[in-house]
């Protein structure tokens, strides 16, 4: 029974740790499908975390925090999109600047608001909502049906985006923009418009992911995104730019992270550095074995139109 309880808590932790990655990676999937790689995702994530914390305090509700986080994350992506879509700047360099700027500005805002040496915020919690009956299923129930609302939202978004991208005209146009923007334009698709909104949507989802981080831990810490924006970029590749696989890949990565805590808690006499490295080793292995044949959108990271302004 002890093993079963351990497995149950491991699976629940996998999903918990996977949710923010899934949210950010789903948004990034849409923007990458439109040909924009947003390295500034980390900037949206941390801005969303601070926005989520401030919003939750101002509205005294976790839901208010999520909405504010989404808005702030989207706002950061608007800045990014204005540069890369509007001015055709290099996506990698601009994204790096957005990430660095996001980490710096959130720290400055936090210190301006809460004092230089910081304070513990007590945010309204993002309580888990058990699905009636289903959460009682042994082992899988607590992992899949007793999670925060954002977890259910991630799964629903995964399905909706999959349908949208691969089964609707909107998705066809968006993918065309990412594969062959010239052809898309010839077919009457507004390339820049599509790229702009796809990128802003990516920022919005990253903002929700950031707000989830803040509300889940009940406070905001400078730099609390901890590189999750970059991991989300890897999750998109691992999920082969397919929203359904992206959700699976995010939970897989969450599982790899959860494993380090479960294994250390077991008190095994293995160097803990091994467990800390495990998520990254697993990702490398998965990328090598599984993504091998997957192909990125052809026009990914290419400015458009080529004859720049």
């Amino acid at each position, binding site marked *: 029974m002890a093993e079963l309880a351990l497995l149950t808590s491991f699976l629940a932790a996998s999903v918990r740790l996977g949710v923010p990655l899934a949210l950010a990676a789903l948004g990034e999937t849409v923007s990458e499908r439109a040909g924009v790689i947003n390295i500034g995702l980390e900037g949206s994530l941390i801005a969303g975390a601070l926005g989520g914390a401030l919003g939750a305090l101002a509205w005294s509700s976790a839901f208010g925090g999520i909405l504010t986080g989404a808005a702030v994350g989207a706002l950061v992506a608007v800045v990014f999109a204005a540069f890369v879509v509007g001015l055709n700047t290099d996506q990698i*360099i601009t994204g790096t600047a957005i990430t660095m700027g996001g980490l*710096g500005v959130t720290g400055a805002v936090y210190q301006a608001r*809460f004092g230089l040496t*910081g304070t*513990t915020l007590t945010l309204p919690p993002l309580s888990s909502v058990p699905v009636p009956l289903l959460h009682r299923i042994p082992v899988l129930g607590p992992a899949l049906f007793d999670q925060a609302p954002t977890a259910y939202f991630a799964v629903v978004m995964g399905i909706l985006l999959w349908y949208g991208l691969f089964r609707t005209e909107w998705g066809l146009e968006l993918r065309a923009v990412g594969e062959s923007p010239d052809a898309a334009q010839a077919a009457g698709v507004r390339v820049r418009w599509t790229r702009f909104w796809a990128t802003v949507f990516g920022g919005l989802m990253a903002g929700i992911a950031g707000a989830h981080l803040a509300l889940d*831990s009940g406070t905001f*810490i*400078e730099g*609390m995104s901890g590189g999750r924006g970059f991991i989300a970029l890897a999750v998109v590749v691992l999920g082969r730019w397919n929203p359904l696989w992206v959700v699976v890949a995010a939970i897989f990565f969450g599982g790899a992270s959860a494993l380090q805590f479960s294994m250390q*808690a077991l008190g095994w006499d293995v160097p803990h550095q091994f467990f800390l490295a495990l998520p990254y080793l697993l990702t490398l292995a998965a990328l090598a074995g599984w993504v091998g044949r997957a192909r990125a959108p052809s026009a990914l990271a290419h400015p458009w139109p080529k004859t720049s302004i």
Partner: protein
Amino acid sequence: MAVASEPVDFVRRVARLGLWLAFLSSACQPPGEDAGAPFQVALLTSGPVSDAGWYAGAYEGLQMIADSFGAHISHQQTRTPAEFDEAFFAYASSGYDLIFAHGFEYQDAAIRAGAEFPETTIIVSAGGRVAHNVIPLIFQLEEGSYLAGIAAGSLTKTGVIGMVGGVAIPPAEGTFDAFEAGAKSVRPDVEVLVTWIGSWNDVTAAKEAAVALLRRDVDILIHNTDAASFGVFQAVREARGDGRDVWAMGMNRDQNDVAPELILGSAVIRIPEGFVEITRLWYDGDLPGEAYYAGSKASLVDYVVNPARVAEYTPELLALLEETRTGIREGTVDIPRIQFVSDEEANR
């Protein structure tokens, strides 16, 4: 890809990046001379001073130095080891007299800078290398951790206690060794579990590590992290919400008021007071040419019982804590020590 090869475009891009960087760095003004101040003191941290912990304590110390001595102060956060040398150079070459490098990680860069700027004195918190103008400031937090261990070993009901650590560097491992020794001194069969999360500030990781430990029947959790400690407290708060009788302990700073309902006490280092003491010694020319040990003897390290939770402690336990505290001060209680300064360094 053809676009990137056009030289004009490349120049334009570099110019844009330059503008960005100029914008980003405009917030960091270079340190200036302050004619009215008797001397200039700088602080380097490799994390945000808003952590309400290790770095916040250093920043408070810097402010106390400004208040007590009228010194001109400046603080800089270095993000990567490559910036350590740059920061030392920037401060030392612009005439700063005393530089506090707040962490073990600065020790090698401090030795290099100390050799280059013999007029500047560098204090390295938890450092392990000594030079005539590079002095390690060693907080003997193992003394406070040992007392915390006595409290945890006495108060645990399940007989399992846990520790969540940031990065497994010797100063952090030392506090956990002492915590375990303290707990086993009162309850030899106590089980002690430790999880390292590989970061000082990742709250999410700290929370999941704490959740996993609580699942293993841990009922008292201590940490040695910075801002990530909030994740440990959050996990304990949620477990208590589920009706479990579990507690947390603070470390580094007096965290008792961070979550008074669930923190039994804190193993503290009084960083600001330590900084002021070092500055006074330096000002009077009494700074030793060797590591300065800040411990419970000078009341710079202690275990502080949370006044709001004192009812959890039996009078016998409070007496035992007091007796051990006195014993540590007088050197009659033997506790595991952290070897900061190697013998070779100490004998130079």
